């Protein structure tokens, strides 16, 4: 398994690990049976994601994609954060081995799930804005 230096950097020194006790939105995706779970916490002020933290159970790529995803959305407006694709996460990490691309899908879904939770807490139906958050395509259960 060959990981890029950036993946190894984000695995070795993951950014924004932890929880936000006063989070405005929390999303959790994946399942333990597959070996990957990502939990994202976001803080939102005036439509901007001011802070984001994560907790991840998973492989090196799962940790690295979580870490990179938090970096990519902090400071972004919600609507821009929603545009974050798994491809952008992969590119920001200088690539992932093909069997690990599903980890980046999980990272994208974790962010969408946290944003959906934020809208729900605001009394807004998230589905028209966030869309359906599908199951991880690689997941077999």
């Amino acid at each position, binding site marked *: 398994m060959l990981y890029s230096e950036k993946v190894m950097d984000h695995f070795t020194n993951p950014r924004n690990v932890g929880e936000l006790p006063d989070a405005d939105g929390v999303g959790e995706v994946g399942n333990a*049976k597959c070996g990957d779970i990502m939990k994202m916490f976001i803080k939102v002020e005036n439509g901007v994601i001011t802070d984001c933290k994560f907790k991840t159970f998973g492989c090196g790529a799962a940790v690295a994609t979580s870490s990179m995803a938090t970096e990519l959305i902090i400071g972004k407006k919600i609507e821009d954060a929603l545009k974050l694709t798994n491809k952008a996460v992969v590119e920001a990490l200088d690539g992932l081995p093909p069997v690990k691309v599903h980890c980046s899908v999980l990272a994208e879904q974790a962010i969408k799930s946290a944003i959906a939770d934020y809208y729900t807490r605001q009394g807004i139906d998230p589905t028209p804005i966030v869309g359906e958050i599908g199951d991880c395509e690689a997941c077999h259960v």
Partner: protein
Amino acid sequence: MNRFVYADNAATTPVSDSVLQAMRPYLQEKFGNPSSIYALGRQAQQEVENARAAIAGAFGVQPGEIFFTSGGSESDNWAIKGAAAAQLKKGKKHIITTNIEHHAVLHTCAHLEKMGFMVTYLPVNDEGYVTARQVKEALRPDTALVTIMYANNEIGTIQPIPEIGAVCREAGVWFHTDAVQTVGNVDIDVAKQNIDLLSLSGHKIHTPKGIGALYVRRGIVLDTLIDGGGQERGRRAGTENILGIAALAQAVLDACSTVEQRAAAVSPLRDRLIDGILSSVPKCRLNGGRSPRLCGNVNISFEAVEGESLLLKLDQYGICASSGSACTSGSLDPSHVLLAIGLPHEIAHGSLRLTINEHTSPEDVDYMLETIPQVVEYLRKMSPLWHE
């Protein structure tokens, strides 16, 4: 301070000094092709036969019963496919194996299933053992072969091979065992243990990769797997890997002459590792029964931790280990061995295998016992599944 601890000897081993010495002449001086007629070739052929005799002696068999192959996978493939094809001529098309075999056996059996063979996969118990009674009950009049590994590569459990061999011999069914992990760890006497076919690999016992052997009991004629020239008495084609063959002979002699010393030296370190981890890390379990178990095998699952992350983190501390997690198996499912002993997927993902040997020092064990709990704690702090 970081040490370098190689604790993945079940994956492969470095070439030992004695093996390197044994190989050296075959690189540049004695490089001849054993099939050549001139002295250089004849000498090479003589060396191949000397090596064969040495290996045969170590297992108490005749030189004519040892065939050189490219390694454990080829030996397993040849034994199973060769036996299946030979037995099919007698109308036999049933194979018995277990659900914890190496993929070289399991995937070969799956291949034969596609060709019309029926395969019984005996389940192991939650400690990772199968019994001779299970084998006896699974035997059918059309059973062509029983293939059961001597010791498991992941969880180190040693199967009751002599008892299983006796059941097979009584029924007149050929019995193959994959002993790749076993050589040097257990006294193997194929005659007493009623073994008809036995696979072994060099690089687990300090040869370079790419050499192995298959023991084929006299009287058994397997269909060939590799056709070509007349090497290995026409049973396995290909110019002899004299470098590897010389290495294998030395390695087998080294391994088989030190079984007791190895067990005496390594078992206490293994037990200290197992007991040390189990007592210092909450929510973990030993996979595979404690006895009989390979003297260097430790396999422990940690809740709420994923195996690949664990390995990458341990690597940063200089510790080389392996895991049965899906991420390290290259598939979505965790190790079939860990699932076979009843572990739920999520626990199987968090397994750690340490395989030590006589070169592992007590200080290496101290270092692992100090490092592993720290790494597990670090990963658990990052894990959404972990609740103190």
